[in-house]
């Protein structure tokens, strides 16, 4: 089937397009981009008037929870949640049960994604077997099976020697090592940022140094080895400074942050709302400002979601005992578009942060509307103001601290590998309710 998307404002930094264009899709691929009104007739026409048409968003930090935690999320619901949020590619973290440290798990994920997924799924393999920092996984076999990067996310690689070896050995394949930076001794027992607010609410704090010290270690190891280091979920001003400094010295490091680290401060925890419990924790206004600055000046390369869906039984309990994590796929765009709305970055930069750079890091041909690329497109109304209702999320995880927030920018339609999801159509609405 052929589809033409007409009258939209197309922004694609990969080919320097920023204006009204029509996009012609043939089957699963983009066939061509034409000046407004010049595209050939197609079987189906999508009118994208007053909408932004951009490459489908690419998330390099998603927890799909399958296998093992299907009560929290499945590949089916997680990818549906992704397309609802405008994402057409998700890279899923290996902290499943069992851990994705072997070919069998990678193949299972890809098989499920093929059969039940709504968008492209790229698995991320574990750095060490069982993510226990003791032995390297078989990188070659995992890459052969489909892994695009490696991470022990959820945990740091506590053994510095093992981290060194991972950064060295992964050079054979030029794949990134995504590091969850946390000194487990410094963060032990902590459930929120350490500071004035943790004093007020009496919850155990996680000092910013728990992240900063590990970022410093990994930068040193990256310098030593020349490996490809990527710092996951940056939450502190200290990390931003360390990464900025490393980049200025030419260290091969990239970094991501997540929407909750530049939209929330720890003061919100005075309510003891467990939806605010996330690791690394939500920090202070100084950190939020530093992260915005880091996004603006290029220190932070990528906005990822760290989508961490949880069942409400795991959240509706003592703050100390509640699970860490935020269900993030369905609010990520609007929360990030906020940066454009407030003139911190321009639209082109936002698309680089959420489409182009993540694709480049993973070495995948996504995040572009170039003819011949996969037909992965998000159509967004950036004027539309809406109220978040997390109970309507397609993700099984309704755990969002942004519930009831008023945001700007709604995903109207998502095209994933040529398949159209029209979020205003009645058939899709049925799916939601």
């Amino acid at each position, binding site marked *: 089937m052929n589809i033409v998307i007409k009258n939209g404002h197309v922004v694609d930094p990969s080919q320097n397009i920023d204006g009204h264009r029509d996009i012609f899709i043939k089957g699963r691929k983009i066939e061509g981009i034409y000046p407004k009104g010049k595209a050939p007739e197609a079987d189906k026409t999508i009118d994208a008037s007053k909408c932004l048409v951009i490459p489908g968003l690419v998330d390099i930090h998603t927890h799909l929870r399958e296998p093992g935690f299907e009560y929290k999320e499945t590949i089916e619901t997680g990818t549906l949640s992704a397309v609802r949020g405008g994402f057409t590619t998700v890279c899923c973290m290996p902290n499943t049960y069992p851990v994705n440290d072997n070919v069998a798990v990678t193949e299972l994920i890809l098989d499920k994604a093929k059969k039940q997924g709504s968008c492209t799924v790229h698995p991320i393999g574990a750095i060490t077997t069982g993510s226990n920092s003791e032995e390297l996984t078989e990188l070659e076999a995992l890459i052969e099976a489909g892994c695009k990067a490696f991470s022990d996310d959820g945990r740091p690689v506590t053994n510095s020697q093992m981290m060194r070896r991972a950064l060295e050995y992964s050079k054979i394949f030029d794949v990134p090592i995504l590091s969850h930076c946390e000194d487990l001794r410094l963060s032990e027992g902590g459930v929120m940022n*350490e*500071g*004035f607010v*943790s*004093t*007020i*609410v*009496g*919850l*155990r*704090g996680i000092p910013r140094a728990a992240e900063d010290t590990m970022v410093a270690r990994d930068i040193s190891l990256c310098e030593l080895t020349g490996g490809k280091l990527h710092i996951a979920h940056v939450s502190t001003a200290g990390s931003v400074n360390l990464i900025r400094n490393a980049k200025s010295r030419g260290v091969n490091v990239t970094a991501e942050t997540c929407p909750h680290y530049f939209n929330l401060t720890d003061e919100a925890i005075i*309510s*003891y709302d467990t939806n605010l419990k996330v690791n690394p924790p939500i920090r202070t206004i100084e950190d939020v400002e530093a992260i915005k600055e880091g996004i603006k000046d290029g220190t932070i390369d990528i906005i990822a979601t760290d989508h961490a869906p949880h069942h409400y*039984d795991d959240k*509706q*309990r*003592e*703050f*100390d*005992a509640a699970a860490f994590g935020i269900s993030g796929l369905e609010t990520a765009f609007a929360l990030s578009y906020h940066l454009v709305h407030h003139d911190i970055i321009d639209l082109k930069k936002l698309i680089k942060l959420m489409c182009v750079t993540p694709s480049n890091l993973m070495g995948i041909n996504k995040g572009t509307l170039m003819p011949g690329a996969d037909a992965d497109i998000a159509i967004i109304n950036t004027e539309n103001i809406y109220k978040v209702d997390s109970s309507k999320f397609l993700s099984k995880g309704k755990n969002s601290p942004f519930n009831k927030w008023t945001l700007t920018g709604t995903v109207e339609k998502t095209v994933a590998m040529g398949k159209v999801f029209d979020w205003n159509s009645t058939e899709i609405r049925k799916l939601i309710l």
Partner: protein
Amino acid sequence: MISSKDLLGIKELKPEEIYLILDTAAGFKDVLKRDIKKVPPLRGKTVVSLFFEPSTRTKTSFALASKRLSADFVNFSVSTSSVVKGESLKDTALTIQALGADFVLVRHSSSGVPHLLSNLLDVSVINAGDGSNEHPTQALLDMFTIQSHKKNFKGLKVAIIGDIAHSRVAKSNIYALTKLDAEVRVICPPTLTPAEVDRLGVKVYHSTDEGLKNVDVVMALRLQLERQSKGFLPSLREYFKLYGLTAERIKLAREDAIVMHPGPMNRGVEIASSVADGQQSVILEQVTNGIAVRMAVLYLLSGVKK
């Protein structure tokens, strides 16, 4: 009037609410001196204690307070109940409400549990100590005790000494004293100082001798003995040497200073026996006042429209 159905913390109280509780407690203290120590205001009401941490004194004090007001007091025994069988906090709380409780007294090692119950339940929730957050009735009985010895709170110099970082008693007292315009000092080693605690309007001292100079009230805190193994202190011996309340040190305070402790005491760790049993000690008075103050809290909350 008290504005909330619950007593979650001193943080949530206005100064006039604190004074109302203290005034009401004064009336009940007279009841406790009578031959027949019982009054009828809570007849037909049920108070259920839900203690997830061991406690003898607070629970007994609440039990007596309830009984003196003619309420039925029931202990929901956590160690032998369904909680041990894996029941969630939410289910336990809803069960207690379904059993017909009017008040739930909760103590838990996790901060914020009373707040969680307050959102889940329609009945009055009273915080009997949550994690390192608050222990409001302890602070109220401490205020009551101070008030009976000192003219007023304004300008009163109070030193709280010990493990401030982990102490809910210290936190509630800091809120209460600062709300009543007292001058609060905290004396503690840097390892047991809460992050940015000075922003609560208190002055931090790491030297005990400096901190005790000319104070009107000295509040000692219980030191959890396991702090040593976590690296907060090198030894209990050194802690006593640096932060123990000795008769020698008490001389640095004003001559008419009172010495308080929420109990149970570790004699020879945070307080010397000569001080605990000394002339200036009001430690047992605190215990007696606890009943009157808890009666006042139950009585006032029973009047709040739900």
